[in-house]
Each structure stands twice: as C-alpha cells, then as structure tokens.
C-alpha cells in the first residue's frame, strides 16, 4: 500500500501546479511583501524614484488623528457588525429550523441580499434612507415623528452602514448555522425531550455548545469582512459626513489615489493587514482550544 501511494505521488508532476503557483506568487504574495517596502518610501504613485524614508510614515500615522479616527471606525464597525450579524443569523437559523413549510424558499430569501454587489446594495439603501422620500422617513412622518438623516448625521451614519451590512450578510452566516444545527444528533435532542428538559435549558446546554464551531467560523469571517468593507461606503457616504464613516479601507483608497500619497497609503494598509492577521491567529488558537475540549 505504502509503495503504491508513493508511486502515485511520484507520478503527479509538479509542472501541473506551476501556472497557479506562478500567478499566485507574482500577483498576491510578491505585492504583499512589496507592501512592506513601499510603506518605507515616500512614493507618490507617479515619479520614477522611490525615496526611502524608513519608518517615518509609521511615526506619522501614530500621530495622525485622521488615521486613529479611521482605525476606530473600522474596529467599531467590524465588532458591532460581527456581534449583530451573528445574533441575527443564528436567530434566522433557529427560526427556519422550526418552520415546517417552505423552508428552502425562506432560506433563499434571507440569503438573496448576499448576491448583490456592494455598489448596488449601497445605492438601493441610499434611496431607502433618503431624507425626503426614503421609506424610513416616510413611515416616521406617517406616525408623526421627526424624520432622521440616516446617512447625513455623523452620529448615525456608521450605524446605518452596519444595518445595511447585516441585511446583506446575515443570510450567509445563517446557512453555516443551519448546517451546524443539522449536524446535532437528533437522538440527543429527543432524549432531552423525553427527559422533560425545558426549551431554554435545551438551547443553552445542548444547542449552544454544539454550535461553538460554527460560531467561531462565523464570528471570524464577519469580523474580517467588516474590516474589508469598502464598496458600500463608497456608494453610501464616501466616508462622510466629514470623516464619520471613513474606515481604513476607504482611507487607503483616498490617500493613495486621490492624494497621491501611495507610501503613506501602504503604511495604513499594513496596519489593516496586521489587524486581520491578529484576528486569524486568535481564531486558530480558539478553535484548537475548543477542539481539545470537544
């Protein structure tokens, strides 16, 4: 058996992997490493010379209130999004678990917003959240309340974006939770029913522990997706009003391509990369711990 396996592995030639390896190395890994170098230069995106300035931009960033504002917005948006999105997704999954008719149809409808592009999603909601004719304000004025400036009020705009992202993303995580629920052995649940375990107890003592795996995956994915948000912000607020919804991704874009400060933009990008790296490492550690327990 061992000889057979070895002979098969010898026969599969490396060249079959070369196109992928070459493209991936050249257009993902290489630029990722070049980022480190770019962030140490004062390149403007056009000039042929890239002046080496060392860690200057990282020092500048540490003192730049615009950077810290974007950093704060990114973290706030990602964390609140991940929490709310997971609550909604789990609630939808539990609900669909109990629905006895048209399950697939409901699942499709909740998943559907996921298929829209960030730009399309953004513009649909720009219209729905419009101050004068958007449905939210039409309903509010209908019941005699004052309309709200959903995207123009700096205190509200970021939460409006989170709301839209929950609408768009919850269905995706719901599907992962549904699979998690389906993988819970039916006999455990039946045994609990026979023993007269109350539903609340059943939820916290059986269902929640069995969903820990789905939860870690979903929470990490939604955190990272929250950090990556860009298209919706472009479409809905352009980072405004003021800098109220400027995230790291949006700042990288404006600094590098509108202001022509590509070195500085890359330095900001490195912080974004470090954030996602930390999240991934924490996730792997947590998953290992839970796997040991289980």
């Amino acid at each position, binding site marked *: 058996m061992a000889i057979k396996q070895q002979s098969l592995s010898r026969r599969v030639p490396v060249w079959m992997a070369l196109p992928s390896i070459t493209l991936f190395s050249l257009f993902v890994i290489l*630029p990722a490493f070049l980022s480190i170098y770019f962030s140490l230069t004062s390149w403007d995106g056009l000039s042929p010379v890239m002046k080496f300035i060392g860690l200057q931009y990282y020092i500048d960033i540490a003192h730049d209130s615009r950077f810290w504002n974007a950093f704060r917005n990114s973290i706030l948006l990602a964390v609140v999004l991940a929490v709310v999105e997971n609550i909604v997704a789990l609630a939808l999954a539990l609900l669909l678990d109990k629905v006895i008719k048209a399950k697939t149809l409901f699942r499709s409808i909740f998943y559907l917003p996921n298929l829209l592009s960030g730009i399309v999603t953004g513009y649909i909601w720009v219209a729905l959240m419009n101050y004068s004719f958007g449905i939210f304000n039409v309903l509010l004025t209908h019941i005699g309340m004052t309309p709200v400036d959903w995207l123009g009020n700096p205190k509200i705009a970021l939460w409006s974006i989170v709301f839209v992202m929950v609408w768009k993303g919850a269905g995706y995580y719901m599907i992962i939770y549904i699979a998690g629920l389906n993988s819970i052995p039916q006999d455990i649940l039946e045994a609990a029913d026979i023993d007269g375990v109350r539903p609340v107890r059943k939820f916290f003592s059986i269902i929640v522990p069995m969903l820990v795996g789905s939860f870690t995956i979903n929470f*990490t994915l939604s955190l990272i997706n929250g950090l990556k948000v860009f298209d919706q912000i*472009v479409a809905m607020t352009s980072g405004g009003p003021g800098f109220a919804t400027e995230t790291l991704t949006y700042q990288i874009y404006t600094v590098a391509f509108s202001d022509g400060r590509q070195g500085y933009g890359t330095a900001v990008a490195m912080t974004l990369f470090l954030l996602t790296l930390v999240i991934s490492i924490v996730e792997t550690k947590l998953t290992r711990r839970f796997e040991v327990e289980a």
Partner: protein
Amino acid sequence: MAATAKKWKPGDCVIFIIACILALAFFFPMFFSLISAFKTNGEILKNPIGLPQKINFANFVYLWNKTSIPRATLNSALLTIVSCLLIILFVPMSSYVIERRGGKFSSFFYPFFLAGMMIPFQAYMIPLFKELRVIGLFGTMAAPVIIYISGASSFGTLLYCSFIRGVPKEIEESAAIDGSSPFMTFWQIVFPLLKPCTASMLILQGVGIWNDFLMPMMVMPPNQPKTINVEIFSFIGEFQVRYDVLFCGTFVAIAPVILMFIFLQKYFVSGIMAGSVKS
C-alpha cells in the same frame, strides 16, 4: 414534503407568520429596486413603495441608447466568463498536485495558498498596480483576469483539495497501469468526479467577479466603459437625481445573478459549506 401531511399546531402557525414577516422585510429592498427600474423618476420620488402605474421600458431604452451600460455589461460578462474558465483550467490542477503529491511539496504549498485568504486586497493593491504598470499590463483587459485567477487560487485550493481528498486513489492507480499519463488521468477521470465542487467554485467566483468594483475601476483601460458596477457608480454625479436610470442599471446588474441562483441554488449552499470548514 412529508411536512404537508403533518397537522399544524398553533405554535407552527406563529413561527410561520414570523418567518413570512421577516422574509417580506428582507425582500423589500430588492423588490423596491426591481420595480423602480420600470417607474419614472417622478413616480419613484412621489410613491417609492407603490407598483408602477404601467410597466414602462423607457428606462431600458434610455440605458441602451444613451449610457455605457451595454458595453459595460458585455465587459462584465466577458471578464466573468474568461476568468472563470481559466480558474477552472489552473486551480483544480494545482490542487490535485498539492493533494496527491504529499511530502514537503504539499506541506509548503497548501498553507502558502491558504495564506492568501487572510490578506485583504487593499493591503497589497498599491504595489500590485505598480507591478502591473512595470510589466505593461495596467490598463488592459488582461489585468483583471490575471488578478482574478491569482486571487481565486487561495479559496480554490481549499475547496478542491477537500474534494480531491475524497476521490479514491485506486481509480488513478488503475488508469496509470493502463498507461494513462497523470495529466490525462486528472482531466479524464478525476476532474469529472469533481463536478459539484467545480459548480460551487464557478458560481461563487463568478458572482464575486461580476460584483467586483474597486479593482476593475482601477486597472481596466481608461476612458472607456469598464464593468457594470463601475458604470453604475459613475451614474451618481452624472445623473444626480435620476433614480429611474440608476435602478434600471442595478436591475441589469442583479437579474443575471438572481437567475443563476434560482437554477443553481444547491451549489451556492454547498460552496458556502465547503468554504466554512476551515477558513
């Protein structure tokens, strides 16, 4: 379907009604955008929720004659199809080598490819664009295709490796004894067994490419129509208050994706599941 025979308890009705209300709330924004494509701008502003008074194709005529949407839609379709075909040509092959070869090769390249999933595009796009300029690909249609293949190989390796693991090696062994080369064995015997995996891959990547915005806006040929999402973006500003034209554009962007979803639903679900196993 067995459920239809069951008697509905009062609790089931309550849950069903809650699900219906939530489904309506979730679907409403899409419904709003789809019907707005058939309304006049005045109708959208005056009665945003109502159905159009009469089905009105004027927006589509306008879109066809006066905007760059037709050309941009064609670009999007071309980019999506060509990139997907090349992804399916390269990624399964490399995954096959990684999965079957084993040893140092696999233990290096499997995490190597997966690492790409952790790097946000914004984190490396600036050097990437510079690189494309240096090799003369910046501002060509080839640039986005190359970036899509490179980007897809991360998730693709994860997806294909997990499926190839489930293919019994004995089939390949006997093919080799019959004198088939590994290359032919892969394409004639292994690849056809990976159909569900390929379907999931095509769908998830296809939707992703069709919906992409920032990268095509930056790297595609300047001063001509780019992709559908980029053109919709450029509407704002050009047509400040023309919501009718805007929603007609979003209709064109949404419709093909929804049609695909309706016919190929199960592959969307299995793709999401496979992607969540280890991320």
